């Protein structure tokens, strides 16, 4: 499904959560939506899933607004970090309700996952541990097979092994059937290899939207003596620089062959670090 975000803004009581954000997600891919706390990620995902309306601008999914639009909401599944399900419902009834809601629901997958994550079908949601409740979210998100599936920090309380299982599952399902998966998380190092494209929000604005592998190729750190590095970076956009003992490292975006030719040391920058430097820089400016 094509997702068009047009000049999207949202304010809460005078505070701006999203400020004139525009971009298009053309294809079913695994997208990483990153940003610091309060960057506007959750607000964006809430508008996308039709839970709330924008103050101005709009999101169109296949040309339609998702708010109060049943045909569309059946195709969108948003799993948040908690309180996804009514506390008094039993696990098996949660699954039943969602199976009625999503025409694409995969009951067999849901059953397999209930077993995999050791959930008791007759337990009530309020009896589940944090990790178990997160597992239930993951199960619903995966089994919904919704063409647009959104995970907003879905795994509070899930241990490392259960998270790994979730990543494997996500890839398996994605390979079997391409769908748009939007994944927001702070555990970037763990999942950045899954992303095909990365979006970074900072204080309500989109600061970056790029193919993940292009980022790894274009974002780099050069190190060498201070004079050499200073000479190389002059006139270029520097994301961050630091120095120690006469040596300097600068983080830049662009082509790096030139730097290597003049004898500077060139290294790639992991997406997690890039996110940190990019969002730091905005604050200082």
């Amino acid at each position: 499904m094509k997702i068009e975000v047009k000049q999207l803004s949202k304010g809460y009581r005078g505070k701006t959560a999203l400020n004139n954000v525009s971009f298009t997600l053309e294809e079913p891919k695994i997208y990483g939506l990153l940003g610091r706390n309060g960057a506007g990620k959750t607000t964006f995902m809430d508008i996308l899933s039709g839970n709330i309306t924008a103050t101005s601008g709009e999101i169109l999914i296949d040309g339609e607004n998702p708010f109060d639009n049943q045909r569309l909401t059946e195709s969108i599944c948003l799993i948040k970090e908690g309180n996804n399900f009514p506390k008094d419902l039993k696990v098996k009834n949660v699954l039943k309700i969602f199976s009625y809601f999503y025409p694409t629901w995969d009951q067999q997958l849901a059953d397999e996952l209930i077993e995999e994550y050791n959930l008791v079908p007759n337990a009530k949601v309020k009896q589940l541990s944090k990790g178990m409740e997160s597992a239930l979210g993951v199960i619903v998100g995966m089994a919904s097979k919704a063409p647009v599936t959104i995970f907003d920090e879905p795994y509070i309380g899930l241990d490392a092994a259960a998270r790994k299982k979730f990543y494997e599952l996500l890839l398996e399902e994605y390979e079997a059937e391409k769908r748009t998966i939007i994944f927001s998380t702070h555990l970037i190092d763990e999942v950045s290899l899954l992303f095909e494209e990365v979006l970074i929000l900072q204080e309500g604005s989109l600061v970056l939207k790029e193919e993940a592998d292009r980022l790894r190729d274009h974002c780099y750190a050069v190190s060498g003596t201070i004079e050499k590095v200073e000479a190389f970076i002059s006139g270029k956009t520097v994301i961050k620089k630091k120095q120690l003992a006469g040596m300097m490292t600068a983080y830049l975006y662009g082509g790096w062959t030139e730097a290597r030719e003049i004898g500077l040391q060139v290294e790639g920058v992991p997406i997690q670090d890039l996110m940190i430097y990019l969002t730091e820089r905005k604050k200082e400016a």
Partner: protein
Amino acid sequence: MKNSLDENKPIFLQIKEQLEDSIMNDSIQAGERVPSTNEFAAFYKINPATAAKGINELVNEAILVKRRGVGMFVTEDAKEILIEKRRKTFYENYMLPLKNEARKLRIGEKELLEMVEREEPVDEN
């Protein structure tokens, strides 16, 4: 096969280089099938599109060939093509850093040449 990938470098490039290395050291031979996109994705937990990009570049370079419905296979000329390709970058990838370091260590041309000629056991890799 590496156990994990390096986050600092494009992933498709690492997939590509890994296949190239396997072909170079004969662990995958001409005519043999290489792992599929999905096998790479599952092994490293990476996005399948990224793995596909690395594999497709090798197809474009005629190092791999796609047989519809069966998979990707190493071409007859794969190793020759790779040797040719690596010879082209040998100077900048190996000689240049070597000479730079030698200069820093004040190792002269003569001493360097002596080292080149020194005999040592052959490294199989």
